């Protein structure tokens, strides 16, 4: 599920923020975590992942530092900033509202 319109870009940002709630992760880790969280529905590819990561970092929602991975590779680990955590809460609430609204809308016609 890559690059499907702007609707999904917001979704991708939300998923990235969500994936980082428990611990800092590197790029591939984030991709894997999102796949796991969505039970394989979202397979985020590098082409979407990196632009999103850099965008979020520049807006101050993510911070990053270099560290060693479990496979002993030098990798950039991303974590949520305070602003990022706050934004995640807002986005989550928004998304829930939309999801419920969509559910009602689609449910009522069927």
């Amino acid at each position: 599920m890559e690059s499907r319109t702007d609707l999904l870009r917001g979704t991708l940002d939300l998923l990235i923020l969500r994936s980082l709630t428990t611990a800092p992760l590197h790029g591939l880790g984030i991709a894997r975590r999102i796949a796991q969280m969505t039970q394989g529905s979202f397979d985020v590819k590098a082409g979407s992942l990196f632009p999103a990561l850099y965008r979020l970092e520049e807006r101050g929602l993510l911070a990053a530092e270099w560290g060693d991975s479990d496979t002993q590779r030098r990798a950039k680990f991303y974590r949520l900033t305070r602003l990022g955590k706050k934004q995640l809460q807002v986005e989550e609430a928004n998304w829930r509202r939309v999801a419920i609204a969509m559910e009602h809308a689609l449910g009522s016609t069927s």
Partner: protein
Amino acid sequence: MTPRGSAVSWLASLVRNLFRGGRRDAELRSDIDTYVDMLVDEKIAAGLAPEAARRSTLIEIGSVDHIKDNARSVRAGALLAELGSDARYALRMMRRDWTFSAVAIVTLALGIGANTAIFSIVNGVLLKPLSYAQADRLVLVWERNLAIGKERDPVAPLNYQDWRSQNTVFDELGAYRFRSFALDDAGDPEQLQALSLSSSAFGVLGVSAVAGRVFTEEEERRADRVVVLTHALWQRRFGGSPSVIGRSLSLNGAAYTVVGVMPATFGFPDGNAVDVYSPLVFTADELTGRRSHTLSVIGRLKPDVTVDTATADVRAIALRIFPTDRASNPDVTVAGAHDVLVEDARLGLIVLFGAVGFVLLIACANVASLLLVRGSVRRREVAMRAALGAGRGRLVRQLLTESVLLAIVGAAAGVVIARSLLLVLARIHPPNLPRVDQIGIDGTVLLFVTGAAVLIGVAFGIIPALQAATPRLSDATKVVTPTYTAASRGRFGLVTGEVALALMLAAGAGLMIRSFVKLQELDLGFAPAGVVSAQVLLPAARYPVNPAQSRPPQAATPVSDTKPFTFFDQLESRLRAMPGIESVGAVSALPLSPVGTDYDLPVIVDGKARPRPGEELQADFRVATVSYFRTMRMPLIAGREFTEFDGPGTTPVTIINDTLARQIFAGENPVGRRLILYGRPREIVGVVGSVRHHGFTRDPRPEMVLPYRQFQFNGMTLVVRSEMEQAAVAEAIRAVVQSLDPQQPVYRVRAVDELLADSVAQPRFTAMLLGGFAVLALVLAVVGVYGVMSYTVGQRAREIAVRMTLGARRSEVARMIVGQAAVYVVVGVIIGLAGALAGTRLMSGLLFGVAATDPATLLAAAAVVVVTSLAASSIPAIRAARSTPVAVLRPE
């Protein structure tokens, strides 16, 4: 739903990206590399061989560069950073293909340089507001009477006073007129140009003195002898000394007090050179009637009052006055001061600006066609970049950056060219071009150049860029063999466009030059070569004229000669006695000269019913000494010339010109008839040929001339015909005047030839520049045709070789190539002729004696363009015909 985040953080990133972009790039690179390595690790762990694992990973994620580019393009300031890297790349490309860049830059520099120079003039003369506060509210006001062909008649003093007190549209109204003072207290007498003005005129312009003060309304009313100096005179004559304030100067033999000095930047908006300002004082005659129209009136409109409203307001006043005094005029003209100042120069400058714009368009077309050629050479490189992940938009942006960079470098060189061009133009511009001090390369001009550079960079780059950025990916790997594509259509368009533009310019220049030649061939009615003129203005205090001469006779005319007559009589005879001097005369106003006493009077024929006042024929009124006509070689058509016997005690006489004779006596012999002048009958004793007094382009006006011995002015223009150098004649005149009166200055010593050259300076300037631009355009267009045809021949080399192998003769090959060029050229010429017919109409106001659609000129221009462009295409054609088919075909 994209998270917004913090603006501070974004700004910080922007700064970081812009200044430390390199480090951020490296970080991004290793971030992605780690990602790739980890994927590979996973695959190896899953059991793949390292080689296979890496290959499958790379296939999976695609181009790393593409990802990197995408990630970079979301970054803060990405656009700027990309622009920077594009520019660096463009610079590299420019250096690599140096010949191409040099040709393109020189072409653009010529085009932009010429444009910058002309725009500097247009900006300084036409666009910049006059240098007064709220200059757009300054207007000039004249009397107007279309019934007798007077669009702008100077204003009678009483009318000015009535307008000033009765109008509701002006903040303030001022009046001025020129006069002349002899500064005669120092050892070196000098004639000063003075502006005699109302004190309110200073208020209209919103200026005050830089030292001392301007004179007051009180001083003006009392006719106090006070003057304000211009900055230039203050510096020249008084060394800028502040002690000049309060000092007394002897002007025309009377003592005047200096009360102030005007700022260096100050000048009256009419642009005439002035030395001193003196209060405007009216004579008793002027305050009792409205017959003498002598004033220029300038006003400052109230805010939000338009020229039309002002016209209506003052016209209403004029209409109230007119029935009470028929010497007044029933209508008025109001016009913006700036518009009036530049009106003679405007059309010429606009035409030049348009012409130079055409040159730039041709230069752009040339560069565009070079870029098209280069686009096909660079097709491989572009395809490669596309294959590596550059999007189409990205490629177009890169190619446009290259063309804009070319344009900017070209513009920088253009500004240098413009500077030297302006230096040249400063020497050859017409002397009556207004506001030359405002011309220069200033902020507005640089803004214009920058804007133009970016615009034309995009304009000539966009089509080649779009074409080049649409590569077939297969081009990346193979040797590209040029084929006919849309590019050839583009080139066709460019060549025809260039030919059309060059033709339009050639036609315009041809018309201007023909018109100028016609001017030169025009019979002026006198022979100017070998005549030197000089102004002598006798101060009325020492040389009083008879005031009764311009009033109806009450007593008997005085029978003795006056001092002015004696002065000029002696001056002429002493000069005439000098070796090398052929003849000497004097007149009140010399043709084509801006100085002199020049006005007109109604023509009243004795014994004929007078037309209604205000509708009579007006004729120019002049006074001349006996040998004036002979010195100027004006032909006598009937009757006799003046003689030394036409004096105070003999019959009053006049000589008229043949224009007046035709208009008023239509076929009858005027000699012996009488005209009433200043209430006194004068016998017409002769008819002389007409002269174009008011310039080449104006038809001769009717004239009446009186003998100087019977009617005197204080100021006369001396004319001396001789074989000697101008400087020697000038020296002789000065010496004789000094010997007669050591206090008397002589000024404006000019060869009549020079006056003549000045009066056609504007058309000559336009013709010269237009001709220059046309030549430049033609050269550029010819280079363009040559370039495109050479390229086409290169592309068709194989085809030509095959044809020749199959038996085509060399002449046939050459004819084929020239034929192809001929198609371009003919289409271009047709478009160009249509354009010329439409365009030259706009310049008909500049043309004299030649129609804007003059078929001979248009055909000649077309012939020049056709011949030169076909000649240009024949070079590659001959080259093609000489090629050896085997050499071309062998490599395949």
